[in-house]
């Protein structure tokens, strides 16, 4: 072997070894910047560590999107509701809310909480809650407003509670969940410590203005036995959306093993082939053709796009009720 051949072989081996070592270290979570453990919005620091589903919406981005501007023109009723909400709470949804992060814990409704980030007037919101029978209690150094709403027969039901976790972050949800969020902020025991979930968040949080990730068993446990027993063995799911001129959405599932993923891919593939073959209407052929099945290993992913041109078509010609003549 000549010297040049030996150098080439050594260089090639060096590249391979470097790449494999980098991958190995990243695989075992040793390179935080590459494993995206700090991904996602800052509000994740308030999400309790045991949350099984986390969702995010970049409200500002969606509100400023071309799609939203088009819808505003054809849905004037929306404007009235917005103004009414602003009169009561001082919140202009279009301008004052930047992001929303929602989390659902293992207890379902009782562990559901949403974090709204933006510009709020705490005094006005607290006054409004008190005016409607709310009570203010101190918890973890925060003012927790327990909502009370009247039931039809004169009884009172407990309504969602809310608290300003930070000056610009309003937590709203079931009272135990809001309390837990206050605890999570104080103790630092939050969802960012869940490396498995954070890895998935890392893959969805960039480039999408709406996303949700979670463990599938949270859903399956609440389903009837007949349905849950027929569900494919999915461990995690991640739904993402990007709203701009059009909409791009994807749903990714992580199956229990490669074989389960392969089976799921086969099922989805069959379904997609059927959809594509039946999309005779040219209006929807583009939509059907945009449906794409991806995935490798345990991952199965389906994505689709509704281009801006199709949105325009839908706004102009239907579906019925979208346009108020």
């Amino acid at each position, binding site marked *: *072997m*000549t010297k*040049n*051949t030996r150098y*080439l*072989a050594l*260089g*090639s*081996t060096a*590249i*391979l070894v*470097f*790449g*494999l070592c*980098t*991958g*190995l270290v*990243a*695989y*075992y*979570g040793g*390179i935080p910047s*590459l*494993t*995206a453990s700090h991904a996602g919005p800052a509000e994740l620091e308030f999400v309790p560590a045991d949350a099984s589903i986390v969702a995010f919406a970049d409200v500002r981005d969606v509100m400023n999107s071309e799609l939203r501007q088009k819808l505003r023109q054809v849905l004037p009723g929306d404007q009235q509701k917005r103004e009414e909400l602003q009169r009561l709470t001082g919140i202009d949804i279009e301008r004052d809310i930047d992001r929303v992060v929602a989390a659902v814990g293992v207890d379902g409704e009782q562990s559901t909480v949403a974090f709204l980030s933006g510009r709020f007037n705490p005094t006005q919101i607290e006054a409004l809650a008190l005016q409607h029978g709310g009570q203010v209690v101190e918890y973890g150094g925060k003012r927790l407003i327990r909502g009370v709403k009247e039931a039809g027969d004169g009884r009172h039901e407990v309504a969602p509670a809310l608290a300003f976790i930070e000056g610009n972050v309003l937590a709203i949800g079931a009272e135990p969940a809001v309390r837990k969020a206050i605890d999570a902020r104080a103790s630092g025991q939050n969802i960012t410590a869940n490396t498995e979930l954070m*890895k998935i968040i*890392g*893959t969805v949080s*960039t*480039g999408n203005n709406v996303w949700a990730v979670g463990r599938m068993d949270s859903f399956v446990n609440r389903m009837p036995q007949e349905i849950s027993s027929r569900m494919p063995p999915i461990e995690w799911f991640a739904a993402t959306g*990007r709203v701009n001129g059009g909409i*791009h959405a*994807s749903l990714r599932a992580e199956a229990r093993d*490669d074989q389960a993923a*392969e089976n799921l*891919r086969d099922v989805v*593939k069959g379904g997609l*082939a059927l959809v*594509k073959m039946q999309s005779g209407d040219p209006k929807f052929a583009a939509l059907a*053709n*945009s449906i*794409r*099945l*991806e*995935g*490798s*290993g345990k991952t199965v*992913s389906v*994505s*689709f*796009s509704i*281009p801006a041109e199709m949105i325009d078509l839908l706004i102009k010609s239907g579906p019925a009720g979208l346009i108020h003549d």
Partner: protein
Amino acid sequence: MTTKSTGYETEPSGSRPGASTKPQTAPGFLYAALRVFDLSLGQMLWSRRTIFMLLVVGVPVIMALIIRFIDAMSGSTMQVNGVVMDGPAIFGMMIWMFFLRFSVPVLSIFYGTALIADEVEDKTITFLFTRPIPRGAVLVGKYLAFLMSTLIVVLPSVMIVWLLIVPMRGSLGTSFIDLVKDLLILATGFAVYGAFFAWVGARFKRPLMIALFFVFAWENAAMLFPGYMRRFTIAHYLQGLVPHAMPSDSAVSLLQSVFQEIPTLGTSIAGLAIIWAVFLWLAARIVERKEYVLEQ
């Protein structure tokens, strides 16, 4: 071609008067194959074919650089046919389109069919065959050199593409196992396609045409329809191992993905092992027995 020591040298008679002449034994098959490998590796790597190979593996790297640059500059997501794609999905697509469907078969064709044909064409095969080594070892040694030279050029290219593309909205950690599978599959692909085309090169007079027909006509056609015909392709067993979903980028690939019948891991490995062993043995056997007539 330059000749080199094969480990079998005779001492000039009478060089040491009175010394007893050592019994001369021909080197074993493996030793002879390794000597031919050593001799051929440099020739293959520094030949004009390598320029073609660098072009084939350089295009994905350049594309990865461009994609990464566009991603960094625009900050927006990468779209293919209007569909937003993250790094691992783009990498999976590149593995299918650039490497599995193109680089592996094409490089195997150009190197595999030429293992013996080049020596015949250059009329240098006599130098190899007049050595006291098994003729089959010549083919096996050249086959090993082909395998090594393609792997040391192609695998780093895959690695660079992976390092550039996957971090775009993806994680190196989560796609690491798939990368290892990809590297193993590509190496297996070169080994199996190489063995098959080595047989084609040794057996047929116009091996290039037959090899191109096999890859671009026969394999595509057989994979297009449901049934057992696909079992007579290498792609059927190789593609069954790929961890990435097959991209539906054309009508042919859409049909292929619809009718894709994925063999089990055991079937794929057994199928590839059988093809590799049978065709490498056949190629060596043909070289052992064939009478090569050099045209004047």
